[in-house]
């Protein structure tokens, strides 16, 4: 991997560990061949593969798997099934899917990974069907497909607007059938290393507050995105980027962290997602003058241009005074008619009624852009392997780079299931080369975490750390949002540093062990503050506009200097930023026109 080789191994003194661990006889240590951190679509699909290969795998998740963020996905999953012909009766193909994905990514995606994902897409959707997923169907009984932003064909397979719910329940059912162990409500606190390898992790059992150790030959990170670092976000409240922070602390690099997707249509007020499926079904965006403003920005694709384009257009309308008071535009579905809305978008309708008091059958829905997806993540190769032997990552927390600078709707659910399976295959293949588990480093790691929690709890300053949490999310949305410039970002970085400084003196007021959710949030915020700094530095250094990263001071894409991935790594307390090349292939970079 690109010459980066900075595995830092703690030097371990086993006698010391034994002596220290003698003082914590209650510490529980679990042993599995493979530990999967995360119970969303990625984690569940991987766990099934690992169990079917006869390996002893287990899932650790901070919430019940069915409460993972994946359950919220609405619009669908892309695959070139070709069940719905495109214009002119042409048929879809995996190559067309790959082309749209690479173009959508503003040519920053690694084309080998994109190719693999698009080739695997149809069998992946069909595999879910075989496991029992209820997909929406066409009259002829085949899986239905709808048009989505940036796609040349109606390629998005869907289950009404509850695709994530249906798929996650299906995988959970399969998991259940195989009796795969799940450590539920365990919050992972560190990755453990031994002899240059990752051989497990530590986690707090939230129910008791005790720290447990997990020894394994391999660890798969499937911890999802970091959306909650931004104040306006469509993400579940638990999406705090813990996996990214864990990787960083293990000296594993992150990649392309400046690329954060802002979804154009989130409900004004709560920022709950109004699926792209709504525009896929024919919904249109209107400004306060009642104009269909997308005509000016993307005359061909109109409201179904890719997300970065539509989000910028809405933001521009709002900034130039053609939005409504409070900063929103309208998403009009009324012309679709009650039947179609109730059949295809029932969840959207319910959300609009519950959370904004608007019934889309009668009235337009107020929407504004909000953070939605983390394109960047843990730096992995095409096999999902990190530079740390035994540590793998897949799904939204990873950056295998199929989305580059901008993800197309429907490609992320696809990525979770495709790479959940493929990375598990790689883990299975690598299993013989991984060393047998050694328990001593885990014991030492438990002591470290207990010491750390002890230190946090002993801090004297009783300032309210939730204020820091709220402040960081505001800074990120305001200074590192849809439009960025160097002055704003420099200011933002200083503010982030200040917050880190303040935070290092704070402590949760609640000092009890069982169900100390304040402590859990505290640990989440600690990671968020570090990630915020990395997003900031990556964004400041990328002096061009590409995909979701829009710099007012550098409005053009600059392939000469920036057709490359940003790689960030923790070096002590400092963040080092380096770069590595994008893997090109079938498609030459061109200007994107929609």
């Amino acid at each position: 991997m690109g010459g980066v080789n900075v595995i830092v191994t703690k030097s371990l003194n086993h006698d010391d560990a034994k002596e220290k661990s003698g003082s914590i006889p209650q510490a529980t240590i679990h042993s599995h061949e493979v530990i999967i951190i995360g119970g969303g679509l990625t984690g569940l699909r991987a766990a099934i593969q690992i169990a079917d290969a006869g390996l002893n795998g287990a899932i650790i998740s901070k919430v019940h798997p069915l409460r993972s963020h994946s359950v919220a996905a609405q619009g669908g999953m892309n695959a070139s099934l070709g069940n719905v012909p495109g214009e002119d009766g042409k048929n879809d193909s995996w190559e067309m899917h790959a082309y749209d994905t690479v173009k959508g990514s503003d040519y920053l995606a690694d084309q080998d990974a994109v190719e693999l994902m698009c080739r695997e897409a149809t069998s992946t959707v069909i595999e879910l069907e075989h496991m029992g997923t209820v997909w929406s169907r066409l009259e002829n009984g085949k899986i239905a497909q709808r048009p989505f932003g940036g796609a040349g064909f109606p390629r998005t397979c869907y289950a009404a607007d509850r695709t994530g719910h249906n798929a996650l329940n299906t995988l959970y059912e399969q998991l259940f059938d195989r009796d795969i162990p799940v450590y539920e409500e365990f919050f992972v606190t560190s990755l453990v290393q031994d002899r240059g390898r990752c051989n497990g992790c530590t986690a707090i059992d939230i129910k008791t507050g005790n720290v447990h150790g997990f020894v394994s030959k391999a660890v798969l990170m499937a911890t999802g995105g970091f959306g909650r670092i931004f104040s306006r976000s469509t993400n579940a409240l638990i999406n705090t980027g813990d996996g990214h922070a864990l990787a960083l602390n293990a000296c594993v690099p992150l990649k392309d962290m400046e690329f954060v997707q802002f979804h154009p249509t989130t409900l004004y007020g709560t920022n709950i997602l109004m699926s792209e499926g709504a525009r896929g079904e024919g919904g249109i965006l209107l400004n306060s003058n009642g104009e269909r403003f997308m005509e000016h920005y993307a005359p061909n694709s109109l409201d179904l241009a890719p997300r970065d384009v539509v989000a910028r257009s809405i933001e521009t309308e709002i900034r130039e005074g053609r939005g409504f008071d409070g900063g929103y535009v309208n998403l009009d579905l009324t012309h679709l008619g009650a039947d179609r809305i109730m059949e295809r978008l029932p969840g959207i309708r319910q959300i609009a009624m519950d959370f904004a008091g608007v019934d889309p059958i009668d009235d337009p829905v107020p929407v504004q852009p909000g953070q939605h997806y983390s394109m960047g993540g843990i730096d992995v190769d095409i096999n999902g392997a990190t530079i740390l032997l035994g540590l793998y990552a897949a799904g939204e927390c990873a950056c295998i780079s199929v989305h580059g600078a901008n993800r197309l709707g429907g490609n992320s659910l696809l990525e979770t299931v495709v790479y959940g399976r493929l990375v598990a295959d790689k883990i299975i293949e690598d299993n013989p080369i991984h060393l047998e588990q050694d328990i001593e480093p885990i014991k030492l790691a438990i002591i470290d975490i207990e010491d750390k929690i002890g230190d946090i709890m002993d801090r004297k300053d009783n300032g309210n750390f939730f204020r820091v949490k709220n402040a960081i999310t505001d800074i990120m949305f305001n200074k590192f949002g849809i439009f960025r410039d160097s002055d704003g970002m420099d200011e933002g970085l200083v503010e982030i540093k200040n917050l880190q400084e303040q935070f290092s003196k704070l402590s949760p007021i609640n000092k009890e062990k069982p169900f100390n959710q304040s402590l859990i949030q505290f640990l989440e915020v600690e990671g968020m503050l570090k990630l915020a700094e990395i997003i900031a530095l990556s964004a400041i250094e990328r002096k061009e506009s590409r995909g979701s990263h829009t710099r007012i001071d550098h409005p053009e894409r600059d392939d000469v200097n920036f057709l490359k991935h940003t790689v960030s790594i923790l070096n002590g307390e400092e963040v080092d930023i380096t770069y590595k090349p994008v893997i090109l292939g079938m498609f030459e970079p061109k200007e994107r026109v929609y």
Partner: protein
Amino acid sequence: MKLKVYRYHEGMKEPRYDTFKLKSDPSITVLGALFQFQQEFDDSIAFHYSCRGAVCGTCAMLINKVPRLACRTQVASLIQGELKIPLSEFPAIEETVKWNPEEEILVEPLPNFPVIRDLIVDTTSFFNYYKFVEPVFKPADKTPEKERLMDPSAIPELELYTNCILCGACFGSCPIDGKNPDYWGPAALAKLYRFHIDPREKKGTDRLELANIPEGWWACEFYGNCRRVCPKGVPPLIAIAKAREQLNDINEKKEEEP
């Protein structure tokens, strides 16, 4: 506007109620109010949350004596009395604490589940019933190369049941579950029925027979609270009624054929 919250942890003789004055924000949800409580009043409070968008089923609790999703329930609507639902008597509906619905919101843990701490309940038995119904797709045929075809007209009924988010609100409001802890409850039976009617499933009566026991299909007395409180419009009692009808038909046929 005030939030009156049930507090309990191991070792307490009796639960207590804490009252907290909310910063007035008409659009705040009960979940938002709980976060305000946690951040500004007492960070030791424990409650479950995840999606905050009424899709993950984590945050079901008893709000003004009705099981609801805290993230979906608007404080203002409660105060204006808009969210009243007529329910049949179930254990937790009794007034055990004084509360003034015009200016207070009463938040308690989901009934019919053991309380672990504050608003967090133990869902083990709920998920055990889920386990009992063998909620795994059992296809009729060998796995084909492509997708199995499915008549789109079969989907609306199936969706009624696949929509369940396993929040437990129905279980919490069920008068039968309140007095008979062995009853599998509405959510598990609705899940079972979902597999029974899936046209891709192995046909036959296996699924129906699975709950053909007093604690299964036959314990329900059709109070209907499950349907009324369900945030996803799932009708467990229709599933139960249909399953019983089909089982009765089968039995009648068996009697006819000596």
